[in-house]
């Protein structure tokens, strides 16, 4: 029996996560293909993948920086500053292109400066993905924009994307989604062997390497867990759910899952470096772009796109969260909000109200480029301690 951390597959995920730039450079060298950085998980990566492109998600490094201030206002989120900082520091010097599926204003701002200021970028594309994903016309509009995006990719690469190419890309991406979903399903167990840190490494690494390669490793990894070859070496403690956005700061997970006086484990991450990235398959055949459009429009929405519209007065994301809390037996929620992130801030009062009604304890942490570890530890520990306060009086 081994622990998850001892599995070579886990080591691979961490290696990919930590050395993502080296991976992309090597991939480019070996394949001669183009690498495109993308902002936001609404990007239909399948179209690029079908053209032989390696799509990689633009991420930051969680290191203090001061080089973005001439271009981005201080009131914009740390993630958009961090991503632009990577570009200005030349860490994305291997990219051939950069693209964004219309998302929040902050990320757009970073994208525009990225596209304008990074010299090696020869192709950039702003994809006006619909914001109103709760309206019945969104998929039709998204399909229209995907058609134009596909055409632009074809013109740039000089390669026509045949239906077969798209089918293959969809197959690879769906396989990835199925495997990642399976990995999350395993965390429903009373004693899950995977932590949030593991899950984060696995999901985020899938965003920065060739999906087909990632699928192979993930399949093997999951087989070992399912076959009972892996043992748990830690106490699960309080079952936590993380609700947030670009939460890929390993420090945060290490602190909460490995660095507190009370044991705690994330059993689900509702964020775009977690479940929101991969939840939901591309379904249907025939009109491939419409199938893609429907998947991206009807996936669990980002708060930036989730709002009341006429007869629908809810938030689809909240419905998903409610469901997860029940099915994954979540005991408490950490709302990890990127500082200055308006879409999340706009949801938080209502989200807290919903959690209160459900009787689920929650804690709101505001994330910055680096985290105040000591303060966070005290606050999370206090929450867990408070959850057990009734025991004191038995």
């Amino acid at each position, binding site marked *: 029996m081994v622990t998850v951390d001892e599995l070579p597959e886990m080591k691979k995920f961490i290696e990919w996560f930590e050395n993502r730039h080296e991976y992309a450079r090597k991939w480019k060298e070996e394949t001669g293909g183009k690498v495109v950085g993308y902002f936001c998980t609404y990007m239909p990566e399948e179209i690029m993948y079908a053209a032989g492109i390696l799509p990689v998600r633009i991420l930051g490094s969680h290191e203090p920086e001061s080089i973005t201030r001439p271009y981005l206002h201080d009131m914009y989120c740390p993630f958009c500053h961090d991503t632009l900082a990577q570009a200005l520091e030349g860490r994305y010097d291997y990219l051939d292109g950069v693209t964004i599926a219309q998302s929040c204003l902050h990320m757009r701002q970073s994208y525009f400066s990225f596209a304008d200021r990074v010299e090696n970028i020869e192709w950039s594309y702003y994809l006006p993905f619909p914001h109103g994903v709760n309206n019945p016309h*969104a998929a039709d509009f998204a399909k229209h924009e995907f058609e134009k995006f596909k055409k632009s990719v074809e013109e740039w690469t000089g390669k026509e994307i045949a239906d077969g190419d798209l089918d293959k890309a969809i197959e690879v991406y769906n396989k990835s989604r199925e495997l990642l979903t399976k990995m999350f399903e395993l965390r429903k167990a009373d004693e899950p062997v995977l932590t949030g840190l593991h899950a984060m490494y696995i999901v985020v690494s899938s965003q920065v390497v060739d999906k087909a390669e990632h699928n192979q490793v993930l399949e093997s990894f999951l087989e070992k867990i399912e076959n009972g070859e892996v043992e748990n070496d830690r106490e699960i403690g309080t079952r936590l759910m993380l609700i947030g956005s670009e939460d890929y700061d390993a420090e945060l997970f290490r602190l909460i899952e490995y660095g507190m006086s009370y044991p705690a484990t994330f059993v689900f991450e509702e964020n775009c470096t977690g479940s929101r990235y991969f939840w939901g398959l591309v379904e249907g055949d025939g009109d491939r772009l419409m199938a893609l459009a429907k998947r991206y429009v009807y996936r669990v929405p980002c*708060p930036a796109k989730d709002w009341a*519209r006429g007869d629908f007065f809810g938030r689809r994301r909240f419905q998903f969260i409610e469901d997860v809390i029940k099915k994954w037996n979540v005991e408490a929620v950490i709302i990890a909000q990127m500082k200055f992130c308006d879409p999340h801030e706009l949801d938080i009062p209502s989200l807290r109200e919903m959690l209160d009604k459900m009787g689920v304890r929650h804690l709101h942490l505001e994330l910055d480029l680096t985290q105040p570890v000591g303060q966070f530890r005290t606050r999370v520990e206090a929450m867990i301690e408070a959850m057990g306060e009734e025991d004191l009086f038995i």
Partner: protein
Amino acid sequence: MEVKVRPFDCWNDFKNYRMNYYKEYLEAKDNGGIRWAGSAWAFDPVPQGLGEDVYPLTGEPYGATAAFFKDFSMKALETIERKGAARDLCGYMRNYWGSVAMDKYLLADGSVIEPFPKPDFNFTIHICCSHAKWYHYAAELEGGVPTYAVDISVGPGYTLDDKKIEYVVRQLEDAVTWMEKVTGREYDDELLIKAVENEAKSMTLWAKICKLNQAEPAPMEEKSMFSFYVLTLIRRSDERVVKLYEQLYREVENRVKKGIGALTYEQFRFVTDNPPPWPFLKVYRYLEQNYGAVSVGSIYTFGLGAAWLGMDEKGENWIWEPAPTPEEAGFEIHDRRSALWWTALFNLKYRASWQHEYSHWVRKQETYQMVKDWNTDAIIMHLNRGCELWNMSTLEVRDYLVGKGIPVATYEGNMADPREFDEARTFNVIDSFMQSLGIEKLT
């Protein structure tokens, strides 16, 4: 050189319209009318098809009015913050939410009325991260007021195609059906057509008026323009608004002919960019009185409610020329669909403030061309913490303009949160900027 100045003849008419606007909304129910609330960017003509007794309350101007009355604003902001709203969210929205949460309604003269008059429905658009969610949460605070938001984020006008327009039109068609359902009223397409035509007239007239400010001396200074431009944002589809703009156009044109200026001594012309710090409009007076510096406009006052040609078809250059009305464009509006098509097309293509969310380049060109076309010496930029949308690209624009040799000053503040403005520091910035340009104080 000393120039003639005189108050605007139509000043009180504009002031009265705005005063009555808030009262009409408040009293709508007394006569069985309909109230609706939404962004100033909402498709204002669409609810007008429900009848002639339909009264809007647009959120941004309301938020600005609240901010102007600092005491009210402070209470509103603190009330909503206690409910968990983040302090860095849109300043207008927080004032609006706070007002709803306090159950207090503010009139344009600062009178406070209780309770807050709930709308029959919320109807808005969504382009920045806030608009639809603003009214979603407001509706929750209001106990579940029906809410509908139209997604308009289809890209800049010069990339517009029929599919993009169709996407918006379909949502508007659904909205009409939905409005009939929530109000129980039958929709009148003739009223819609009239409202759509009025909208185009108001927005193009305001553009023509702004254009007249290219004259030297400038016939208008921006602080006064704030009282004029706002009608395009509160009820542009109202025929009374069209008439007021016709009146203002004639008056400004006459001022230009007669050389009547906004300032007795105009020795420095500049433009601004963002919404101003509404609780501290004295910044404008400080510049006028101390330096004879006139703000001739901004992409905010010009772009928010006016219709301009905007980017050329290639997306290379910005054209500050008024957009055509349906008549001038040869577009026949004869039924609901053609009316909705026109209002979608007109706003998506010609509303300047719906263009620069999609690239730095548009905002750079828009601003640069304004500095040139209005013959200004500089730009003073408000780094506005209260609106992430209007703050987009500002620093890149600054960098671009500096590269073009245009003097740029920046000051930080918040359009609608009195707690986030340093008056003394701002005046210091202005003094230093003027000194660096060799502009001496008036004696």
